[in-house]
């Protein structure tokens, strides 16, 4: 399976994302923001970083790049798209995901290991049981998820993951940024487009403390195989 990883000017996690893709047994394909060509990949990752300097608002300028036009078509046809951190912000700005990401409630850039609880089945969590707790790093300054009605989003099965403690408890003490209802990731209504603030691509190597990210990134492969 070929998974595309988009590089915007200011992306910084694209290399880690390609490495993670190769570790889960897929072929990483580098995609450039200026090309409206997805090179016939079967899934796309938008990595973390500071696309176009994050001027105006995080992800606001990246949304107008040529690759995003192709990505909107790809997502519309049901293609799997995962935005991580800045990629999540880009997908919200592009209207492919509901809600928005705002300044962390504590105003500080947060960089730490964080537990998240998987809430919903999606292409990116295929084979992962709901309620599973993963240890995944977060690193962001504007990750506070905001939505007009988080309960409605949860009822629609669009909450992908929430911040939690090691035992899965979702509460304010385990919320790194003040996200509404502890939301760490969401999907679109169809479920093929997902955004995650934490970084599964940084949790793929035992040397760095956790390999839980492989389960999230590997799920899309498992789903592709079961569909084949």
């Amino acid at each position, binding site marked *: 399976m070929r998974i595309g990883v988009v590089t915007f000017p200011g992306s910084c996690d694209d290399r880690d994302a390609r490495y993670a893709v190769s570790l889960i047994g897929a072929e990483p394909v580098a995609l450039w923001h200026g090309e409206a060509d997805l090179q016939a990949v079967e899934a796309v990752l938008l990595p973390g970083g500071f696309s176009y300097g994050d001027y*105006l608002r995080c992800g*606001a300028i990246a949304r107008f790049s040529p690759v995003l036009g192709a990505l909107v078509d790809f997502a519309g046809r049901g293609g799997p798209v995962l935005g991580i951190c800045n990629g999540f912000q880009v997908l*919200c700005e592009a209207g492919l995901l509901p809600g*928005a990401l*705002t*300044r962390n*409630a504590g*105003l500080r850039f947060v960089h730490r290991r964080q537990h998240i609880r998987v809430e919903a089945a999606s292409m990116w969590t295929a084979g992962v049981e709901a309620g599973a707790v993963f240890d995944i790093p977060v690193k962001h300054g504007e990750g506070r998820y*905001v939505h007009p009605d988080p309960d409605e989003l949860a009822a629609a099965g669009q909450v992908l993951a929430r911040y939690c403690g090691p035992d899965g408890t979702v509460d304010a003490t385990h919320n790194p940024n*003040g996200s509404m209802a502890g939301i760490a990731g969401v999907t679109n209504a169809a479920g093929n487009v997902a955004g995650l603030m934490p970084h599964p691509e940084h949790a793929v190597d035992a040397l760095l403390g956790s390999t839980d990210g492989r389960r999230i990134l590997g799920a899309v492969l498992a789903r592709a195989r079961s569909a084949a």
Partner: protein
Amino acid sequence: MARVHIDVMLKDEILDPQGQAIERALPSLGFEGVRGVRVGKHVVLDVDDRGDLEEQVADMADKLLANPVIERFTVRVE
């Protein structure tokens, strides 16, 4: 050319931690009795007026300068 001013503010229901930080800082300088601090952006543009200026600028604000999910804007033409 018309000079246009656009104010972009977080919607009232959206938490503004920057405003809160300023509110907490003011009393330490002796400025007591300040409430409801909110921080926004002020954008200034010089735009060719082709007759639909207000509409054109509102469209710009809606599509780029503000994120309507979390922000609201006001337009003032000089």
